[in-house]
């Protein structure tokens, strides 16, 4: 059955790698939010010079696999003289990827806020930016939060793909430990458990945030 000694002995190594996975996740989360919000607002803009690049970005990301996107950034970009290294490449790839999905989520939320809200805000002399910030986005947030949370849970799990570009996060650490211990079941089981801890914590934080935004509603 399970070799407990191996598990106890190697758990600290995996835990340490989990911290890197968490860092990658959080950084991509923040960047992915910025990319997503910008792309959503650009795609909603009337100006085609804003709308077209945003539409293209969202289409490009959603129609290609994340793994290939990571390979292009990590292996392909250096050919153009852009060598970001594994960490930056990984974070950028993940953030661009989740950003495109966030963009569609955020755009959907903004569209779902009734037009009368914008009209009321504008009739009070608010600028487009102010009405977006004070009136539309807070209401959209309530609708956006659950699907956005889903994107982030997927993001946490997708960080395992950056193991393929030599970033020694949780999955690659596990692989390396298996190379020296020949105990794949034990090691991968622990890695899976650690991912589950990350995603479950994220879910808990999200449902707390959802409850808070809903309480404000009525």
């Amino acid at each position, binding site marked *: 059955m399970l070799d407990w000694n191996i598990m106890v002995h190697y758990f600290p190594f995996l835990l340490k790698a989990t911290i890197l996975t968490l860092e990658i996740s959080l950084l991509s989360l923040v960047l992915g939010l910025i990319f997503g919000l910008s792309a959503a607002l650009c795609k909603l803009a009337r100006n085609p010079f804003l709308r077209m690049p945003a539409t293209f970005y969202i289409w490009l990301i959603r129609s290609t696999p994340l793994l290939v996107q990571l390979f292009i950034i990590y292996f392909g970009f250096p050919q153009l003289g852009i060598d970001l290294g594994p960490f930056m490449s990984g974070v950028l790839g993940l953030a661009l990827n989740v950003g495109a999905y966030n963009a569609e989520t955020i755009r959907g939320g903004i569209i779902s806020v009734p037009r*009368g809200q914008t009209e*009321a*805000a*504008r*009739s*009070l*002399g608010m600028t487009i930016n102010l009405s977006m910030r004070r009136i539309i986005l807070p209401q959209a947030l309530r609708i956006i939060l659950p699907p956005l949370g889903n994107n982030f849970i997927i993001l946490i799990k997708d960080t395992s793909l950056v193991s393929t570009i030599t970033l020694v996060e949780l999955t690659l650490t596990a692989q390396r430990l298996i190379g020296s211990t020949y105990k794949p079941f034990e090691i991968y089981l622990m890695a899976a458990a650690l991912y589950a801890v990350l995603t479950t914590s994220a879910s808990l934080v999200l449902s707390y945030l959802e409850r808070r935004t809903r309480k*404000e*509603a*009525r």
Partner: protein
Amino acid sequence: MAFNSINRTDVPMIEICDLEKRFGHLQVLNKINLKVNPKEVLVIIGPSGSGKSTLLRCINHLEEPTGGKIFFEGTLINDSKKNHKAFERHINQIRCRLGMVFQQFNLFPHMTVLENVMEAPVHVLKQNKSEVRDRAIALLDKVGLMDKTGAYPGMLSGGQQQRVAIARALAMEPKAMLFDEVTSALDPELVGDVLRVMEDLARDGMTMLVVTHEMGFAEKVGDRVIFMADGVVVEDAPPHEIFASPKEKRTKLFLAEVLK
């Protein structure tokens, strides 16, 4: 400037010249000419689709006119000579002095009643928060909602929501107010409270443009009534004239229908 202020009282609050609005091929407003003087209450009546809402929405530029000119206190509103940024600033300044109340209330559901009323004075006019709060509470008292300041709009009746919407517009201390069928979405028993608030406002000297189907209100509170049909002003007269002895056949038919 001095010249301007000398003639202040002669300048109409709102002046509309040959206003046109088309949606694609649909001509919704066709050469509308109208003057509204300070403190005047103008009631706009007419069948559905005649362009009443579009007229109000052109005045505060929620709709962009396709022709003609609209002046607010002598200032051209739809000034096409301004570039995009300058026009934004220009129109926002005008909207600060020209309140609007909508049929569907459009309160901000994520804010309390008090926050709804305080929002624009604090964030648009950048007025002192505690002064705005005092004014907002006084306004809510005036519309009979003193006890609802902490409530969210979703917890209020339609009539209460609409009175908050009126208070929200008044908090900007506007020079004129646009009302677009503000009682049409209300249960009949809630209409009276809202109309009373509007009546008080008229008595206090507010310049008002009121689109309504409440003929009783039009007769009692209106200084002038215009009847619109198919995008034109068919008749323009004091209420007692238009209700007692309408000149135009279409006005007669319409009034016979609604007063039935």
